[in-house]
């Protein structure tokens, strides 16, 4: 009996531990992998705490990675292989994302690469917003600040389920947008105001009959014949609208070396 109770207690402990770390593929997997050696120990500890808390709370796999070589791969593929090859995706987290900074000589840049269910969260817009958020600090070498801002942004994304638009490194608020669209609103409002009042004024004027359909005798129309001639043909060509400027961001998908699908994007610098 004692053995049985110990067995049950052991199962409960395992279940509790598994539930607390639902977002992690394994409690042993590091959440900040600084192969480029750009962070201090304190910075790694701080980032690890915040990413760990985020992963445990929201259950989405997430990891930070830096490196100085990509093993001859593209940054996207290197980051995707990192996720697949190191077991960052399993059934408990249903998906994983790596925010990767490559400092390889001549191939510097960052990528936000997702696999599994996280591909639906880190869409092209979200990756673009992250790029806008970290761009300035990345280019000026403030890597920790860039990673820290990125972690804050992703935490907010997981918490609210909604991506706050970022333009020029700043969060775009409703009031920013109102300021942006107010002139358009005023112009549209004035046009509609004038059109509606013109319609009201038209109702104040005479409306003389200009046709005689009421007096057309029923069944009196007799169509004796009809002939058709081709006259001419013209073709108009208009250029397709181009995609909006993404500030150098790239986005796409592909297959990892092990065949797993991934998607994501980032910028080079």
């Amino acid at each position, binding site marked *: 009996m004692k053995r049985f109770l110990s067995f049950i207690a052991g199962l409960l402990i395992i279940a509790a531990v598994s539930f607390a770390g639902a977002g992690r593929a394994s409690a042993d997997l590091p959440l900040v992998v600084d192969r480029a050696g750009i962070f201090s120990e304190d910075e790694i500890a701080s980032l690890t705490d915040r990413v760990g808390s985020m992963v445990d709370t929201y259950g989405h796999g997430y990891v930070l990675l830096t490196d100085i070589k990509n093993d001859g791969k593209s940054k996207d593929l290197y980051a995707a292989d990192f996720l697949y090859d190191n077991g960052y995706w399993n059934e408990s987290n249903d998906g994983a994302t790596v925010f990767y900074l490559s400092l390889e000589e001549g191939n510097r840049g960052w990528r936000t690469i997702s696999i599994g269910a996280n591909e639906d969260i880190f869409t092209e817009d979200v990756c673009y917003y992250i790029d806008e958020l970290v761009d300035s600090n990345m280019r000026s070498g403030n890597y920790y600040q860039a990673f820290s801002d990125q972690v804050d942004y992703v935490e907010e994304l997981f918490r609210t389920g909604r991506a706050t*638009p970022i333009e020029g490194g700043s969060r*775009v608020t*409703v009031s920013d*947008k*109102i300021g*942006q*669209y*107010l002139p*358009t*609103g*005023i112009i*549209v*409002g*004035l046009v*509609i*105001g*004038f059109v*509606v*009042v013109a319609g*009201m*004024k038209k*109702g*104040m*004027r*005479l*409306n*003389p*009959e*200009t*046709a*005689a*359909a*009421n*007096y*057309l*005798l029923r069944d*009196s*129309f*007799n*169509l*004796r*014949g*009809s*002939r*058709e*001639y*081709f*006259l*001419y*043909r*013209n*073709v*108009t*060509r*208009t*250029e*397709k609208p181009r995609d909006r400027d993404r500030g150098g961001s790239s986005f796409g998908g592909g297959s990892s070396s092990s065949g797993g699908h991934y998607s994501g994007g980032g910028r080079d610098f």
Partner: protein
Amino acid sequence: MEERYSQQTQAYKCPACSSALRFMPAGNLHCDSCGNDYEVEAIKALYEFDDEGGFDWGDYKKDRAGAQERLNESVVYVCRSCGAAIETDRTTVATRCPYCDNEVVISDRLTNGLRPDGIIPFRYESKDLPNLIRERFKGKKLLPGNFINEHKMSQILGVYIPFWLFYVGLDGQMALEGTQTRAWADSKYNYVETSHYLVQMDGSMRFGGVPVDASVKMDDDLMDSIEPYDFSQMVDFDPAYLVGYVADRFDADPDASLPRATARMNKSAEQVFSQAAPRHYDTVSIRSNQMRVVNPNLRYVLLPVYLLNLDYGGKKYRFAVNGQTGKIVGELPVSKGKAWAWRLGIAAVTAAAVTMILSFINL
């Protein structure tokens, strides 16, 4: 000796860009400006339409021609009730004696060719009209608040207005332009190809009782707005119907009135042909209308109208009420202050809504 030759010339122009067309050895006509090629038959058909003459009005007015008389600007009649001399203008048929208030019908203006073929009697009484007019004005947000004048409302005048009713057939050809549109795209461009066709249609139709007011002094737009009348309620003319109302006889020549009727009939004819055009076109528009008037006839009738004049802001506003249906027509004054208040109010509400919608959509 210089010899002059008279020669009838015909210059064909491109239907697409109006530049001169050139005959090509291949048997087609070519436009050097826009590069289009045309079948000769198509262009000839197009120009046959453009070259045809105007309407044949016919001799429909011969019955009325003898009735046209030269009348002085004013005529004096003797009231049979009090013997007073009443001066009227040349078109008045019924009036009221200013001395004894007796109704006067000037019967010699209702004889022979001047006698109306029919009359629609008044169905509404003048006492009903102030309420009708107030109802008509009720929903008008831009109407100045003090426009309705109770004193003036009591001065509504019932008038029998002379009308010509035209019974006309239209026969001939209508040329329409039909277009077919096809769209496609490649990686860089969107393309829209529009093919233009000439549709030549031949047919006829007949209109019965198109009314045109036969009084020169009456505002044509006002009378065209007061329709429709229910002509099934028309009765044979009897001078007794005029008692208590003012009545005029016609003074507008039917020749001068018919173009207004035919303009309306032609517009309806164009709608009828457009609806009858082949269905495989995406758009159809009228290119030329060569309908002729055939078998024209007309009737001279008196139709009941109440007239009301209101002064506002130094301008006179005339209203007419259909004495058969109660329909009220007339131009109303617009309060500038109210118009600006509405414009700015609508603009403010719309601007706020549009700004918020765009802000949230693009956030």
